[in-house]
């Protein structure tokens, strides 16, 4: 094989595995320089934090590939915890602990799903960009969440409820199992179903997809609805972890979720991206945040570094796109 061909294959695989390589380098660096990074306890801790983010990010990946965006997921997550707390607070004595949690959870997931449907329908009927609708929801849902709790944390869960967010199963944090299930489901959905194919087509060129008889609005709406439900799921786990429904919980989470998705190589122009990439993006953000805390980097510097990383990741993707 000629050297030119070799370097081409090298460049191609670097392009494909760039994110994996960078994550690996980061982990090695942190093991070497961040005190306490390489312990099992810390590792599980990172995974637990990352799970809450990842569950939503997989949905967000689908939304962004379909050419849309959802800024309301943090608020939806906050509201979901509050709803479960609210139902427990009001009805646990009447209907019992398990039914109350169950009803609260189902209601929260349904509401999350419906916010996605709402956004999708507004897009379809009035052609309002999802950026605008979800920006409005972002504010409105926060308000609703605080109305539900009356503005104070609502620690009304039954004692066993903490398990879902803070407990371990076979030594592994419970949210990690949820993350794994959502990852597999979304990966499968995007890769092996006609719905997944439609998402790529719709995001790549909505008009061509429409003329090929694909229901563009339905596809986008479903992607948004799934993400809304996943945001609610993540919010319930978070509420369980902190032990109460808090209206202001998960503030700013949308930015982390979108960052992870973009770091993972999903294009904001739509049509391109992978669920696997998003998993890497989420792990990357989790490791960076954890590592910097362990290394006693000030909180303000952490923000600066994260900003730099987001921009760096996008630049890297663009450059890799060019060398072929």
């Amino acid at each position, binding site marked *: 094989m000629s050297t030119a061909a070799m370097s081409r294959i090298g460049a191609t695989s670097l392009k494909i595995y760039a994110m994996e390589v960078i994550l690996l380098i980061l982990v090695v660096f942190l093991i070497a320089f961040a005190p306490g990074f390489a312990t099992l306890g810390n590792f599980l801790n990172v995974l637990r934090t990352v799970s809450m983010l990842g569950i939503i990010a997989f949905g967000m990946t689908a939304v962004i590939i379909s050419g849309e965006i959802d800024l309301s997921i943090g608020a939806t997550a906050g509201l979901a915890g509050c709803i479960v707390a609210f139902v427990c607070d009001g009805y646990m004595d009447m209907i019992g602990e398990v039914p109350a949690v169950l009803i609260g959870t189902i209601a929260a997931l349904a509401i999350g799903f419906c916010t996605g449907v709402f956004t999708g329908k507004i897009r379809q009927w009035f052609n309002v960009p999802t950026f605008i609708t979800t920006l409005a929801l972002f504010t409105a849902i926060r308000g609703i969440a605080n109305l539900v709790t009356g503005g104070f944390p609502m620690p009304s869960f039954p004692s066993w409820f903490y398990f879902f967010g803070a407990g371990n199963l076979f030594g592994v944090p419970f949210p990690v199992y949820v993350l794994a299930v959502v990852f597999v489901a979304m990966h499968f959905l995007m890769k092996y179903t*006609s719905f997944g194919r439609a998402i790529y087509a719709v995001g790549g*060129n909505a008009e*061509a997809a429409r003329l090929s008889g*694909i229901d563009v609005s339905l596809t986008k709406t479903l992607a948004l609805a799934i993400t809304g439900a996943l945001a609610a799921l993540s919010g319930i786990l978070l509420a369980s972890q902190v032990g109460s429904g808090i209206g202001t919980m998960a503030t700013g989470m949308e930015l982390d979720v979108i960052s992870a998705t973009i770091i993972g190589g999903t294009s904001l122009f739509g049509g391109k991206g992978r669920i696997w990439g998003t998993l890497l993006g989420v792990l990357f953000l989790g490791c960076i945040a954890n590592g910097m805390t362990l290394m006693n980097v000030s909180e303000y510097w952490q923000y600066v570094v994260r900003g730099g990383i987001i921009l760096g990741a996008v630049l890297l993707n663009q450059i890799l796109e060019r060398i072929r």
Partner: protein
Amino acid sequence: MVRGAIEFRDVTKVYGPTVAIGRFSHAFEPGRIHALMGKNGSGKSTLVKMLAGAIEPTLGELWVNGARVRFEGPRDAYAAGIVTVHQELSLVRSLSIGENIYLGRLPKKHVMGGTVVDWQRLNDDARALMADMGLDLDPRALVETLSVGQQQAVEIVKAMSFAPSILLLDEPTSALAAPEVAQLFNLIRRLRARGVTMIYITHRMNELFEIADTCVVLRDGHFVGATEMKDATSASIVEMMFGGVSMAKRPARRSVDRSRPILSVRNLQRDDVVHDVSFDLYRGEVLGFAGLLGSGRTEVLRAVFGADPHDGGAIVFDGETIERPTPKSMKKRGLGYTPENRKEVGLVQVLSSHDNLCLASIGRIARHGLIDRRLEQPFVDRQIRDLSIRVPDPMDPVSSLSGGNQQKIVIGNWLNTEPKVMFFDEPSRGIDVQAKQQIFEIMWQKAERGLSSIFVSSELEEVLEVADRIIVLYHGRVVAEVLPEETTLAELYKICMEGSP
């Protein structure tokens, strides 16, 4: 210095494993019109893009005006007096015609110490340029409101506005109808008289003899030969392009059973563009739509397919009255539509050829929503084989295919849905003679097995050859219905131009 001389010296361009141009050497004499011929994917556009500074040669040298040049971008090419009209339209759809023509060099004027765009001058200049080309359009109109043909004309006007010494035209006529082509040729002759060197790519053989001085033929990226047009015949050029193949002839015309239409349209109305259009399409029939640009051919098809809403009229498809067609519901009923503008709406450019071939049949390659690889693969392989699509790797983005091969993907995408009725809107646009023939053959074969199609083409010869019956549209109305065996090209042309038989 030799103004307008172009020379390629041992130029090679590779894309990954694909050799788009291999060791090409040729000198194009200044002041003449050089046709560049070759089948789809033979490297014509690649050659032109290197001269235009859009891509750089992998190996070899370009010489322009007697000096070696190295273009790092289109700007360098402009600076050397080279202007290009690319195969795929590249106007900004949301800007006006005038802005597009002067994009990046809008005329300025000074007002109260500041510099602002001089709209008055911009629009006046643009109008004058267009009038020069015999084009009567409002320079303030947005490009997205223009038909593909009009956009192509604007693109050419834009190229002219640079007053180039070398003009590269990559299939400029593929979206134009006869009168626009005639206008374009007048313009090209005027430019030749001024000493401009031109490289002209086309798949329309008859144009060569009308406009070109020499013809250079490429096959699979390699130089095959060059000939003076006065010594050439179309047979000798086809021979050079394909290395001796026999062109299929149209099968004998069958008598179509016209007792029960599969599609009947009555009094179709779409404000401003379609007026009171009625026609029937029968099983196994190929119905041709003839007409000038803007005569409403595409608009009728889009309304029936449900791509655009219509304001009145009745559509009966396969015995079923359809109130509000949508592409999705019409596809389910067995109607397919290949749009005329493949780049914008026919393909999803970021996806692979594989995905684009399955776009309309996403539902068919899946069982209960799950994609079945064993079902899917034949969908891809069959079309690549039947349409002889030249795809190095079906998993590469469809944007890496040559123009003609992209067109075939659009058609393959729809044939995969096994439709009962197909609307082919300019299917032969940008396709080489052989591929064109293959597509026509597929239309005839499928017609024999019962597929009905409506065929739109700006090339009237094609409509006469392909269709069993022809409807002529003029300003959104049906003005005549003719049978190809009883009509000459001149007669059909006259009806299209004048709007009456």
